[in-house]
């Protein structure tokens, strides 16, 4: 009874003081979702096995200590159950090692039946103008992932887009999963092929609200590229379309005067100038299931 009162008092004191006194420390050394397999860079299965073995060893040690300190003697009759239990645990841990943890490929196959139609009916390909609207939407946080090669990225990319290779995506997805629920993820490449691969990986890693830039950077430039003229845009600041467009989906359809990255005006189009573009809105923001701990 007194203990519970104390508990409440402690929790109360904490709630009252934490913001004023210690909040810097309380919020320090934040490492996000950080797990032991990542800490030791070994596959999850081995960590599980190691912990099981250590645990069994510690149980054995604990019983020795109990006996030494004059506690209850372990009953002989239980020994075989304990051994059996330890055996089952180790076998199960070995099984976890052998099964391994799912690769992005496995994970995609589990959900392919459900998610493939979204690609086929193009429900997740969003028009460049829709992306632009969301970039300027204060209620939604847009994370743009550019999965092209470094060369193309350096030539031109949308402002604030982050370059990431397909191989890095599964690792990165852990960080992306921590983003707030109102985050919209948009993957892009020159065309759509590679972005679609990236989409599959992210969706397989359970990210929600992932979309693909329709037609890729080529389509973005076609939509927002500003013709050079005397007053406004200098010739040096305008990518030039290549005619006819080179074959292949993942090839840039534009020539760039220099590798200026996001410095081209087309990298940060003015939403007011393009507000007349019509498109079919496709983004449906889903809110993740709330979780928490005690």
């Amino acid at each position, binding site marked *: 009874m007194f203990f519970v009162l104390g508990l409440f008092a402690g929790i109360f004191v904490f709630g009252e003081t934490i913001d004023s006194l210690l909040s810097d420390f309380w919020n320090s050394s934040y490492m996000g979702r950080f797990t032991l397999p990542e800490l030791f860079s070994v596959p999850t299965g081995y960590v599980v096995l190691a912990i099981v073995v250590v645990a069994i060893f510690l149980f054995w040690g604990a019983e020795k200590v109990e006996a030494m300190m004059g506690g209850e003697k372990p009953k002989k009759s239980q020994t075989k159950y304990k051994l059996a239990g330890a055996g089952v645990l180790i076998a199960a841990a070995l099984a976890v090692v052998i099964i391994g943890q799912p690769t992005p490929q496995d*994970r995609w196959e589990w959900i392919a039946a459900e998610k493939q139609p979204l690609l086929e009916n193009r429900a997740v390909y969003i028009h460049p103008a829709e992306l632009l609207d969301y970039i300027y939407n204060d209620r939604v946080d847009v994370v743009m992932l550019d999965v092209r090669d470094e060369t193309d990225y350096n030539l031109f990319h949308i402002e604030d887009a982050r370059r990431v290779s397909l191989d890095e995506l599964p690792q990165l997805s852990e960080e992306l999963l921590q983003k707030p629920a109102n985050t919209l993820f948009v993957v892009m490449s020159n065309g759509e092929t590679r972005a679609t691969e990236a989409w599959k990986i992210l969706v397989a890693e359970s990210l929600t609200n992932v979309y693909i830039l329709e037609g890729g950077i080529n389509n973005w430039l076609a939509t927002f590229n500003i013709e050079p003229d005397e007053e406004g845009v200098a010739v040096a600041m305008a990518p030039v379309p290549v005619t006819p467009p080179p074959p292949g989906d993942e090839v840039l359809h534009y020539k760039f005067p220099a590798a200026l990255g996001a410095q081209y005006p087309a990298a940060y189009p003015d939403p007011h100038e393009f507000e007349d573009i019509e498109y079919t809105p496709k983004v449906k923001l889903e809110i993740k299931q709330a*979780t928490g701990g005690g």
Partner: protein
Amino acid sequence: MGWFPEFPGPFPIEAMYGKVGLYLVAFLIGLAFGYILEIGGFGNSTKLAAQFYLKDMTVFKVMFTGIVVAMVLIFGASGLGLLDYNRVYVNPTYLWPGIVGGLIMGFGFIIGGF
């Protein structure tokens, strides 16, 4: 979608059965948790404190067995595609506050029992 949610878990209980369903599930899980803690001897403070005088390692045994068994089940299920580890809540790491809080709790454990 039938009445039973599809694998892999964790299941969208709230979306499927509403808040009441979610709360009922939470209550039942809590019920089982409380029951097990009690039969394990966690309701008796002397027994809990004895842990720290090395006479009775019950706390350690129950907790560690629980962690290990749950861990094997979770990662086994994850490997088989029954549970989506990416959507499971993993306590975010705040290393030093966690350690300091742990020390404070340890002191409290000894002074107050549980």
